[in-house]
């Protein structure tokens, strides 16, 4: 009922307060879910990954010291878990082979424009290899600098740049193909 700052919620959750933890989850689930959805293109996989991420966050919560913002820390876990998830899934199927699924969410059902944008974005992301997709996500959707990307993905800044430039090059080919 009363407003509680994120620091209070984190402190309470660290002490084992379930309600505080559930509030934290509620505050971050949309960002995490949409990230997972963009990366995996499949709502079921996105859901699975999101659940894995929050279990992982809960497990690591006692280690959170507040050196970075909670959101940044959560997303570091998200990146790690998504890479692990992708490696696991890669053995079963190529993500490019996953059939495009119609969005079932009621708020979007009537909005054809949004649906079309999502489909286009999905198809653009699916054209990219996983490593490049990650860099694109971090650069354009998480608005990270190359240094932050390099730190989060544990690669050099130059590698991060070259991955992004390759991704942009691939988009050019894709757009040319779409335009005919």
């Amino acid at each position, binding site marked *: 009922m009363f407003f509680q700052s994120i620091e209070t919620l984190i402190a309470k959750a660290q002490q084992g307060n*379930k309600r505080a*933890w*559930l509030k934290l*989850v*509620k505050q971050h*689930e*949309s*960002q995490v*879910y*949409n990230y997972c*959805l963009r990366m995996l293109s499949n*709502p079921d996989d996105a*859901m699975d990954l*999101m*659940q894995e991420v*929050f*279990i992982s*966050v*809960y*497990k690591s919560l006692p280690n959170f010291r507040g050196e970075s913002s909670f959101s940044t820390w959560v997303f570091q876990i998200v990146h790690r878990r998504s890479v692990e998830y992708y490696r696991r899934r890669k053995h079963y199927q190529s993500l490019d082979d996953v059939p495009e699924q119609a*969005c079932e*969410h009621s*708020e*979007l059902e009537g*909005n054809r424009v*949004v649906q079309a*944008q*999502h489909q*286009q*974005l999905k198809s*653009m992301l699916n054209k990219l290899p996983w490593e490049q997709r990650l860099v*694109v996500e971090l*650069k*354009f*959707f998480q*608005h990270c*600098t*190359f240094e932050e990307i390099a730190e989060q993905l544990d690669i050099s800044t130059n590698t991060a*740049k070259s991955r992004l*430039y390759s991704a*942009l*090059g691939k*988009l*050019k080919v894709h*757009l040319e193909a779409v335009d005919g």
Partner: protein
Amino acid sequence: MANLEMLFEQWLDGKVLSDKQLQQLENDPEYAALMSQAKVWQQHSRDYKAVPVPTWDRQSTISQLSAVRVFSVAGAWAVAASVMICSLVFLLMPQQQAPELLDQVAKQTQLLESQQKQIDQLQKIITAQNELQQQHMYQLAKEAITTGRVERQEDINSLITYIKTQRAQDQAYLRMQLNDLAEQVQEQPMAAIAKN
């Protein structure tokens, strides 16, 4: 070129460039292409409407771990309690009983040692018995194989004898039939015999 790369990075990071700097980037075909492609992604990022999260069980993020935590906490409590009880027993024990206690401890130690020796001996006996049993099993298997081989040999021999007897009987029967035919031919008049 390095200058252009730096400008492009600044532009990507959202820093405001002067018109001249933007002109520089746009005049370079490579960076102009990169900029236009980056603009497509930026546009998608701006237009992106967050998909609502489907209903899910947020409690599941806790419940999968709580069981483990309960066990680990219970384990820690058990260890702590046993350590405390041991310390209390040791501290609250009257000092006069110390020699008796030491005697008891020595006896207990001796008992434990003798028990350990017994366990070792039993272990040796079990190992020896296992080896003996393995040897017996080996002998049994060997005998079974030999017996099977002899039996098969005998069966084959009796079969061969039976076939030989059968063949001898067949040959005798054929001989008899041929003799009958020869007799019939001899008894027939000469006129009935075909002439070439």
